[in-house]
Each structure stands twice: as structure tokens, then as C-alpha cells.
């Protein structure tokens, strides 16, 4: 009897160990994917700079990140790729979209968290939730079918011939619409977690309700609101399909004109891939690599600013 018990127990221990190791492997596997992504992008993305590219010649790293034309000469006959103007337009577009989405998003969050009556707040919260769950391709479709037409007609009023509305402005509007729900959701949490005593103190000192909301609540929630902005920028930088439907696929030349066609790093990656190997294939990984670097640097800088800004306490 006792022997049966011992074998049973040792069997149990064996199973336990087996399960432990198995589950650990799954966790390790999940964690390893980030390295898989990193190494794949790095290996493929560096190939154009390190090899001869089947006789087309090596792509120069400096011309690649500073140049003003996506590709000089026809595809498959040249290695003169560059993304310099794309990096700058991408950042320019994301910055402009943040100019719209940040105030709107934060004020919406303030409205939902502090100003609206309970029922109305619940209703608007659902609206934001639905907006956040709409897939980006639907935003793109909305942009291509609705925003483009409006921008086109508007540009005709000012007397500018825009190419069917494909422009910086349309791209900025779509990106702003897509990032508003992200910013609203995150800032709302930050605003709601502001210490109630702080608010009561401000009201007791004779500040009006609105003054308190804007000067005390928003300042106290600053760090969380900044995180919201960082997340919004992250989403805008990585957005691809929606933007590709309204950008217009510019191939060369830096332009800050709001009504001119444009392109971002992501839309260029999506554009006409004809081969499954060779330079025109590998170069997309190089663009992806640049995109990742841009995202990392932007994130790092924004976090740096956040740390500085976050230190200022409520006056």
C-alpha cells in the first residue's frame, strides 16, 4: 500500500516537473519572438548595405538616410534608394496629427471624467471605446471615400489643384482621428486617478470648477496624459494601410505643403512589391529598420521630456 503511494507520489512529482518545464518553454518561446523580429529585420535590412545586391552595387548608408528621392532610375536597375525625405515627412505628419488629436483627446477625457453627468459620460465612454475598436482599414476607407473628397473640394476653393485630395492634410486628419481614442482612453484613466483631496482643496480656496479642472486636475494628471501622447505617437508612426489610401504615394522631394501629395515610411514599404528576393525586396526591410529606429528614438526623447515635465508639481 505504501509502495503504491510512493510510486503515485513520484509520478505526480514527475508530472509536476514536466508541466513546469513545458509551461516555462512556452513562456520562453513567447519572449523570444521579439528577438526573432529584431534579428530578421536586422539581417534582411542590412543586406542592401553590406552586399553587392546581385551586381546593382551596394546601397550607401549615408545617401540612404539623407536622400531626397526614393529610387533614381527604374526598379531592378539601380541601387540608389533613399528615405531621408520620408523620415522627415513621417515625423512632420505625425506631429501635425498630434496637434489635432492631443487637445481634442485630452479635453474629451476631461469631459468624460469630470464634467459630464454620469449617464452622458457613460455614453461618451462607449463612443470612444467603439472608435478605438474600429479597425484601421475602415478609417482608411472613410478617409479615401469621404475626407479625400472634402479636401479636394476645399483645395479647389483655394485654387490649388490637389491630386484627388491625396495630401498631407488628408493623412493628418485620418491619423488624428485614429489616435484620438487612444489618447482619450489613457488620459481619462490618469485624470480620474487624480487625488480627490487636491480637487477639494482647490475648490475650498475659491477656485471655480473650471479653473480647478484645467489648472489642478490636468496638471496633476500630466504624467499620465504625456504617456497617452506617447502611445498616440507610437500608433501614428506605425500606421500603414489607412495612411496608404490617402497619402498619394509621393516618390521624391521633401514637401511641407499641406495640399501636396505625400508618403510615409510605412506607405513606401507597402507600395508595389514585385519580387520575393533581391534588392527591391530587401530594401523594404531596411525601411522597416529605419522605422523601428525612428520609433525608438522618438519614444526615448518623449520619455526624457516626460521625466522632466513630470517632475513639476502642482503649484
Amino acid at each position, binding site marked *: 500500500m505504501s509502495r503504491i503511494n510512493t510510486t503515485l507520489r513520484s509520478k505526480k512529482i514527475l508530472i509536476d516537473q514536466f508541466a513546469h518545464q513545458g*509551461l516555462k518553454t512556452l513562456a520562453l518561446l513567447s519572449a523570444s519572438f521579439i528577438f526573432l523580429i529584431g534579428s530578421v529585420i536586422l539581417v534582411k535590412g542590412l543586406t542592401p548595405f553590406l552586399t553587392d545586391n546581385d551586381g546593382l552595387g551596394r546601397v550607401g548608408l549615408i545617401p540612404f538616410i539623407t536622400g531626397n528621392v526614393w529610387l533614381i532610375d527604374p526598379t531592378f536597375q539601380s541601387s540608389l534608394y533613399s528615405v531621408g525625405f520620408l523620415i522627415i515627412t513621417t515625423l512632420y505628419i505625425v506631429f501635425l496629427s498630434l496637434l489635432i488629436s492631443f487637445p481634442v483627446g485630452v479635453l474629451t477625457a476631461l469631459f468624460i471624467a469630470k464634467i459630464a453627468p454620469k449617464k452622458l459620460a457613460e455614453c461618451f465612454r462607449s463612443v470612444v*471605446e467603439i472608435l478605438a475598436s474600429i479597425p484601421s482599414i475602415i478609417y482608411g476607407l472613410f478617409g479615401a471615400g469621404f475626407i479625400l473628397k472634402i479636401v479636394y473640394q476645399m483645395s479647389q476653393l483655394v485654387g490649388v489643384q490637389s491630386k484627388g485630395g491625396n495630401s498631407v492634410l488628408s493623412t493628418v486628419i485620418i491619423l488624428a482621428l485614429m489616435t484620438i481614442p487612444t489618447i482619450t482612453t489613457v488620459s481619462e484613466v490618469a485624470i480620474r486617478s487624480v487625488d480627490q483631496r487636491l480637487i477639494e482643496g482647490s475648490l475650498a480656496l475659491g477656485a471655480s470648477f473650471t479653473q480647478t479642472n484645467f489648472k489642478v486636475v490636468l496638471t496633476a494628471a500630466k504624467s499620465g496624459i504625456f504617456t497617452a501622447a506617447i502611445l498616440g505617437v507610437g500608433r501614428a508612426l506605425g500606421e500603414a494601410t489607412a495612411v496608404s489610401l490617402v497619402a498619394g504615394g509621393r516618390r521624391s522631394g521633401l514637401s511641407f505643403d499641406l495640399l501636396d501629395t505625400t508618403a510615409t515610411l510605412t506607405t513606401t514599404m507597402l507600395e508595389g512589391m514585385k519580387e520575393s528576393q533581391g534588392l527591391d525586396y530587401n530594401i523594404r526591410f531596411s525601411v522597416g529598420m529605419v522605422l523601428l529606429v525612428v520609433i525608438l528614438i522618438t519614444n526615448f526623447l518623449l520619455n526624457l521630456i516626460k521625466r522632466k515635465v513630470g517632475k513639476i508639481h502642482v503649484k
Partner: protein
Amino acid sequence: MSNKRKAQDFLLQFGTYFAAFFSFATLSLIIFFIFTNGVKLLNLDLITHDYQAKTHIAEPLAPNDTDYFEPEETLKAEVYYSPRWGLGLIDSIDLMGKTQVEIAYVHPSSPFQQLHDKGLSHELLSLKPDMMIIRIAYSDQPSSLARYGAEQMIDELALSNQIRELEFTIPGGGIRGSIITTFYLIVFSLLFALPIGIGAAIYLNEYAKNNRFTRLLRSFIELLTGVPSIIYGLMGLAFFVPFIINVSSATSGSILSGSMTMAVILLPVVIRTTEESLKVVPDEYRQGSLALGASKTQTTFRIVLPGAFPGVLSATLLAIGRIIGESAALVFAIGTAIKDDIRVTEQSTSLAVHIWAMMTDEPANIELSSTIAIIILLIVLLLNLLIKLLTRRFLRKVSAPR
């Protein structure tokens, strides 16, 4: 309070009202746009039809002189019917506004039930309602064409004894293929993502000690959420696509490679949601089970995991929503060829990529895209609602006994 103060307050207050209204207006506009453009194509045919229209040229058998087919059902008033051929036609208008002749009724013993394909394949075809007749060519009189309408076609058909050939179309514009692809994608992605994700979550929450190694694991998994989906697409293109080509008959991107890529995208969501629900399971359950002599494995899989089931379910629903909405990653990891015959080792498009493929095509098909968008939106809304209900019930259940 001074008047200046009041005015300033009012302005700021107005700003928040305006911002909130802006979000509401955006949502209404998007829904309005999609419905006005897409609702006219929204019907059952859309879901059952192929995307590519197919045209056949075929030849029917000649009817006997004595044939007379009385229709077995009452036909609508607009249907023109030829009892000799057992064929009922109706006028309709295609999406471009052109007249076309649609088949409304075919008698079960009509000669049109058996047609010899004059094309490459020698299969037997038959006319069915919803198909469009383009032209009928006779041996003994000039052809009748669709553009003259159904009435004239039936009149000419009644006069003829011998049909030389018949050209007809099975209408396209359906999304059956993309629906099947989306379904396959959901099944396979979940098949990859759920076991790995749930397993990893169990390890992190139940087994792992709180040390540096575990924190490192967590932060690596957390890093995955920040990667844009187009980068996942590149990873799928460079890693999973060649992998599937090596182990199967696939020659390019396929549903399988797409599902694997999708699974990686889903992992952080599945892990986080599952872990959250594992955390809510009270520690007394674990202690009780262990005290009764159950092993750690038994406790985890028989007591803790079932307790966290609603969380796992909502992770699954979240994942399904993500799969249905994903486009950028799938453009790279599967491809953008819209197909009707779906195989898991071949290219095809999910509903979202179907929209992208049509919108980047010239000319862009906004109507059909909006119709697909309606379908996607309805599914996503339904999933959201389910998740909300689920979380609410789960929270109530867990907090009730305390």
C-alpha cells in the same frame, strides 16, 4: 467672480464640450458614410457569391415540338416566361446602370438544365436563378442580346427551334472566399496563439518566482505590444512564409504563414488578459486544493484555469477582433490576391485585406468596400459587447462570495 473670469471659464468649458462632440461626430460620420455607401450591396448573395464573375458559353439540347412546361410555381408579374423552353427571364440593372437579363426561373425538366460547355472543360452546366444571360445565338435567326431586354429575348426564343450557343455569367462581386479565409485565419491563429499564450500566462502567474529573470521575460513580451503591425508583416514575410514553403506545397504567402504571423501579434494580448484573470482567482482555491492532496499541476489545470475561464474566453474574443481588423501585417504575410477557391497553402485575402486590395486598385470600389466594412464593424461591435458582458459577470462572480 469677475466677468472676465466667467467668460474664460465658459470658453474652456465650451472647449471640452466641443472636443467630446467631435469624437461623437467622427463616429457618426464614419457609420453614416459606411452605411450610405455599403447598404445597397448588403444581401445574402454577397456572402454566397464568388468575387470573380465567371462567363460560360454552352449549348443546350433542342426541345421537342410537343414540349410544354407549365411553371411549377407562380411567377412574379415582371417575369417573361417561355413555356416551350421552360425559362423565365426578368430585366435587371447592374451596378454600372446597364440593363441586363437575369434568370428568374428554370423549369426542372427544361432543356437549359443540361448544357454542354463549349469551353475547355467538358462539364455539364445548368442555368440557375440569379445568373445573367449575355446572348443567345440561334441557328435559324439573328442572335438576341441582353441589352434589348428580357421581353424581346423571350419572344425571339419562342420563335426559334435550335439554339447554337448561349453565353451566360455567374455574377461576381461576392465575398464568399474572403469570409472563408477570415474564418480559417481565426481558427489557425487561435490554434497557435491560445496554447502558447495561455501556457506562458500560467507559467508567469503560477510558477515563476518573482526574480530578475521573470521580470526580463515579462518585459520582452510587453515589448511585443509596441511593435507596429507592418513590422510583424515583414517578420512573417521573411520567416514564416519561407518556413511554410519548405514544409508544405505552398509557393508563396499562404493562410498558414499569415496565421502564424497573426499568432505572434496576438500573444501579448492573450498572455496579458489570461494573466489578469488568473490573478483574480482567490488564493484560497489553490491552498484548498493543495491541502486536499492535489498536485500543483492538478491544482493549476483543474482548479485555477477553470476559475479563470471567462478571462480566457474574453482573450479569445479580443483576439478574434484583432484578426478580423488586421490588414498591414497580412498584406505581407499572406498577399493581396482575392481568391474564390480557398486553400490554406495558397494566397487569399481576409475581409480587411479584401478592402485594402480593392481600394488600392484602379478604380477603387468604395461601395463593396463599405459593405465589407459594415460586416467587419458589426462583428467587432458584437465582440466588444460580449467582452463587456463577460467581464461584468466574471467580476460579479468573483467578488460575490467575499
